[in-house]
C-alpha cells in the first residue's frame, strides 16, 4: 500500500461557482489504476464526485479523462506511472478537452463525437445480392479492420485533436477511424462514394495535420491518424480521387518535393500544390489567388526569419549520396507498400536473441515453452505511450 494524492477538477453547474481543484489522499497499491483511486475517494470521502465508469478494464470506454494533462482512460493508467509524471507528486485529473463539461469529470460527447460518428454513414452498405450464407472475403481483411473495430469510443483522441481545436467542424480522428472500418471492409459496396465524400468535405480526411496526438492518446492502439492516412492513400492511389480542397495535390506536392530535394522546399510547396510538378505551376490562377491570400503569413514568416529570401531563390538540397538513399526509400515504399496493423504482425515465431522469460522461472512452478519474445515492448508499457 502507498499513499497517493489526487487533485481533481471539480465543477458543479448548479452552484454557479466556477470550476475548482480539490485534493484527496487515497491508499492503494501502486499498480492500481487512477480510476480505483477516484472511486476510493468517492466511496470514502465524497460520493458527489462525478465520473462515468463501468467496466474498469479498458473495454467500455466510459472513463476518458486527462491525467496530468494527457488524455487516457482512468482505469488504464497505473497510479505509480501517473505519479511519475505528476508535478509536485500530485496526480492531476481533469475532464477531457474539446468537449463541454457537464459536471466534474463528465463531458458532453454528443456534438464533438457522436454527431461526427453519425456523419460518416457508420453502417455497412452491403454488396448485393446478399449471399445466403456469409460473404466470402480474404482472411486478412477482417483481421485488418479489427484494428478500427477495436475503438471503444472513449473520446481520448478527440480530446487532444489539434485540428479539431482549430476547426471544430473537423470530422475528427475517431469518426474517420470508424470510416476506415467500412472502406477496409470488402463487403461494403460504397468505397468510392465514401472516400469521395470524405475527401471533398473541407473538414474531412485532408483536414488532419499529422500531429500524432490521437495515436498517442488512444488507449486501444487504434492509431486513428494511421487510419486517416490509409483513407487518403486508398482515395488517391486506388480511386484517383482529386478533391476540390486541393488536399490530394497538396500531398502529392510534398511527395515530389522530398523526392527531388530530399527536404521540403516551402517556397515551391504552394505552386506545386496547385499546378503539379510543371515549371509553370506558379502561374496557374488558383495558385496566384492562394498566394495572394497567403501574403500575410508569408510576411510574418519573413519577419520571424522562418524563411529568408535567399532560401526561396536557392532551395536547400541534400548531398547526392543522401538523395540516393531517399530514392531507395521511395522505391521500397512504392514497390512493396506495407500497411502496419496491430493485429497483423507478419511473423509466426519469436525472433531469436531476446532474453529468456524470467518471471515464471522465478516463481519456481512452471517452465514456459516460449523461447523468447519480441513484442516490441516490455510488460507494463503500453504500445501507445
Amino acid at each position: 500500500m502507498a499513499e497517493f494524492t489526487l487533485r481533481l477538477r471539480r465543477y458543479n453547474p448548479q452552484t454557479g461557482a466556477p470550476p475548482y481543484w480539490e485534493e484527496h489522499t487515497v491508499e492503494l497499491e501502486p499498480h492500481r489504476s487512477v480510476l480505483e483511486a477516484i472511486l476510493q475517494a468517492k466511496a470514502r470521502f465524497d460520493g458527489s464526485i462525478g465520473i462515468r465508469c463501468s467496466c474498469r478494464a479498458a473495454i467500455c470506454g466510459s472513463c476518458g479523462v486527462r491525467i496530468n494533462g494527457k488524455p487516457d482512460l482512468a482505469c488504464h493508467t497505473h497510479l505509480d506511472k501517473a505519479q511519475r509524471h505528476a508535478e509536485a507528486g500530485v496526480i492531476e485529473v481533469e475532464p477531457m478537452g474539446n468537449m463541454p463539461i457537464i459536471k466534474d469529470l463528465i463531458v458532453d460527447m454528443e456534438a464533438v463525437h457522436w454527431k461526427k460518428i453519425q456523419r460518416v454513414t457508420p453502417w455497412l452498405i452491403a454488396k448485393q445480392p446478399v449471399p445466403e450464407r456469409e460473404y466470402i472475403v480474404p482472411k486478412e481483411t477482417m483481421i485488418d479492420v479489427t484494428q478500427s473495430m477495436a475503438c471503444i469510443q472513449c473520446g481520448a483522441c478527440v480530446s487532444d485533436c489539434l485540428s479539431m481545436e482549430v476547426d471544430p467542424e473537423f470530422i475528427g480522428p475517431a469518426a474517420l477511424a470508424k470510416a476506415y472500418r467500412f472502406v477496409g471492409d470488402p463487403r461494403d459496396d460504397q468505397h468510392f462514394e465514401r472516400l469521395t465524400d470524405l475527401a471533398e468535405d473541407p473538414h474531412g480526411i485532408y483536414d488532419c495535420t499529422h500531429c500524432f496526438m490521437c495515436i498517442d492518446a488512444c488507449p486501444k492502439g487504434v492509431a486513428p491518424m494511421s487510419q486517416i492516412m490509409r483513407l487518403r492513400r486508398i482515395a488517391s492511389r486506388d480511386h484517383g480521387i482529386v478533391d476540390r480542397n486541393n488536399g490530394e495535390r497538396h500531398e502529392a506536392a510534398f511527395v515530389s518535393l522530398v523526392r527531388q530535394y530530399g527536404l521540403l522546399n516551402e517556397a515551391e510547396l504552394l505552386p506545386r500544390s496547385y499546378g503539379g510538378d510543371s515549371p509553370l505551376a506558379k502561374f496557374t490562377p488558383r495558385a496566384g489567388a492562394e498566394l495572394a491570400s497567403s501574403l500575410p503569413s508569408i510576411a510574418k514568416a519573413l519577419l520571424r526569419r522562418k524563411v529568408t529570401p535567399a532560401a526561396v531563390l536557392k532551395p536547400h538540397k541534400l548531398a547526392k549520396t543522401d538523395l540516393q538513399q531517399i530514392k531507395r526509400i521511395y522505391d521500397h515504399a512504392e514497390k512493396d507498400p506495407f500497411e502496419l496493423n496491430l493485429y497483423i504482425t507478419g511473423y509466426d515465431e519469436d525472433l531469436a536473441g531476446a532474453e529468456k522469460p524470467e518471471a515464471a522461472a522465478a516463481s519456481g512452478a512452471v517452465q514456459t515453452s516460449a523461447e523468447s519474445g519480441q513484442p516490441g515492448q516490455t510488460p507494463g508499457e503500453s504500445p501507445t505511450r
Partner: protein
Amino acid sequence: MPAHDVLIIGAGLAGQRAALAAAETGATVAIMSKVHPVRSHSVAAAGGINAAIAIDDDWTEHAYDTVKGSDFLGDQDAIEIMCSEAPQEAMHLEHIGVTFHRNDNGELDLRAFGGASKKRTAYVADITGQAILHVLYEQLMRFHNVVDRFEEWFATSLILDDDGHCAGAVARDIRTGAMEIFDAKSVILGSGGNGQCYRPTTNALICTGDGIAQAYQAGAPIMDMEMVQYHPTTLAENGFLITEGARGEGAHLLNSEGRRFMEDYAPNKMELASRDVVSRAEQTEINEGRGVGPDGQGIYLDVTVVPKKRILESLREIVNIGRDFAGTDITREPIMIRPGQHYIMGGVKTDVDGRTPIRGLYAAGEVACVSVHGGNRLGANSLLDTLIFGRRSGEHAAARGKDMAMPSAPAARLREDADHIASIIGRERTGRRISEIKDELGDTMNGYVAVYRDEEGLNTALGIVRRLKEEAAKAYVDDHGTVFNQDVLSAIELGYMLDGAEATVVASIERKESRGAQFRTDHPDRNDDEWLKHINITRGADGEPQISYSPVTITRWEPEVRKY
C-alpha cells in the same frame, strides 16, 4: 410524455436486438439505458458466439451440449429454439456488418469452446461482444428516425395498470434529474445481470440487477437464482475476465506442481470442460494446497503454448489485460488466475417469446431466465441467448401492440419515485455509507455463496443480507444535486442488488442437492428425483420472498450422468 408501442429498458445486445426487431415490423420503439448503449456490459463479452454452421455440425448437437452443460436443468424446448435459430442469427449479424474472422477459404472461422463437442464458436478476435454491440449500434444510428434513444436515463419503476398489465415505466434523466413517465404497450427488460452483488466479479459496475429487482417488485417470479456462474479464468489480481477463448486456442491450466490437473477431473475435455466443472477443479486444487502465488490462491493459465502470431491476432485483448492489469506478458509467461463470479443463469422467468407472467412485460438476456442455461451456461451461449430472445421479444411485443390502444400509465408512480429519491437525498448522516454496505454484500456473497456452499454458510449470508437491507434503508448520500447525481442512483442500485442477492441465497438454501453451478458440500450429489425442477421466487404480500417450483421441460434428452 413519451409513448411508444415498445419500450426497451437496457441497451446491451438483448435490448438493441429487440429494438431493431420491433422497429422492423413498423412499431414505434424507444430504447432507454442508464449508460450510453456502447458502454453496456455486453461490450465485455470476449470469446464468441455459438452457432452450428459448420458442414459437419448440426444444431441438435449444439442443443445436446447445452442441455448437458446446464446439468439437465435447462428447458429443452427453449434450448431447441435457441440452437436451431443460431445459424440464421449468426448470418444476419454477418450481413449487417459484424467483422467475424475468417478461415483460409474466406468463410467464418470457428474456435473451440468449453463444453462443446465441436468447434462452433464464431468470433472477432477476443472482442466479439464489442464488435457485435457496436455493429448493432450502427444499425440504431441508421434507423435513428425509427427508434428513439434515451441515453443516460435511469428507469426507477415499472408501472402496472389496474388490470395488473405492464403499461410503461418511470425514469429519471441522469443529466438533468427530471423524472418522466414513459407510456408503452409493452416493456422489454434487457438490463443485464447483477454480478456487482459479488466482490470480486468480472462484471461492470453497472451490473446491479436493476431489471431483476424491478420485475420482482412488480410481482413477477424470478427463477434459478441460485445458479451463479464462476468463470474459471479471472485475473487473480482483481477479478478481470480472461476469455475462455484462451483455452479454446489451446492454453493450459497448471497447478503448483506444473501439472495439467484437469486430467484428474475431465480427462476427455481437459481445460474445455464446462465452466462449473473447471472452476470446481481449480478451487479443489487451491483448497488442497496446490494453488500458486504468494497466498496459494491462484492457478496458472499458460497461453505461451499458443503460437505467438495466433495470440496477437486472436487474443489481443487479453495480451493488453495481462500487460496493463497484471504486469504479465502472456505471450512469454503464464498468468495467475482463479475462479471468479461471472454470470447469473437465473433471472426473470420468461417463456420462449420473452414473455413474463405479467402481461405486457418481457425480458431477454442475462436479466431473464428462459431457461436455456439451467444450472450452468456454456461459454459463447450468452451472446446467442441475448440475440435470439432479444429478437423474439421484440417481434412478439411489436405484434402484441398492433391492435391495442396506447395505455395511459397512472401518474402516481412518478410521484412515489420522485418522493423516494428526495427522501434518500434528505437522509441524515447517521447511517452507513452506501459503498460500505455494497462492499460487505460483495464479500459476503463471495465468501458463502460461491463455488462450494453449505447450509451453515448460506444461513450466515442470509442473516447478513437481511441486516444490510435494513442498513441500506438508512444509508446516506453526499450528493444533493440533480445533475448527474450518481450517488443517489447508487443508493437505488444497492436496493436492487440486495433484492437479487437475497433471492440467490434463499434459493441456494432451498436446493438441497448439487447441480451445475450450485455445489452443496452437505448435499454433494445431484438428486433428479427431488430436484429436477426450477425454484421460483416471488415477492410475497409481506415483502418477503416466497418459494414455488416449476417443472423442467424435457423434449428429447433424459437426464444422464454428466462427465467431461
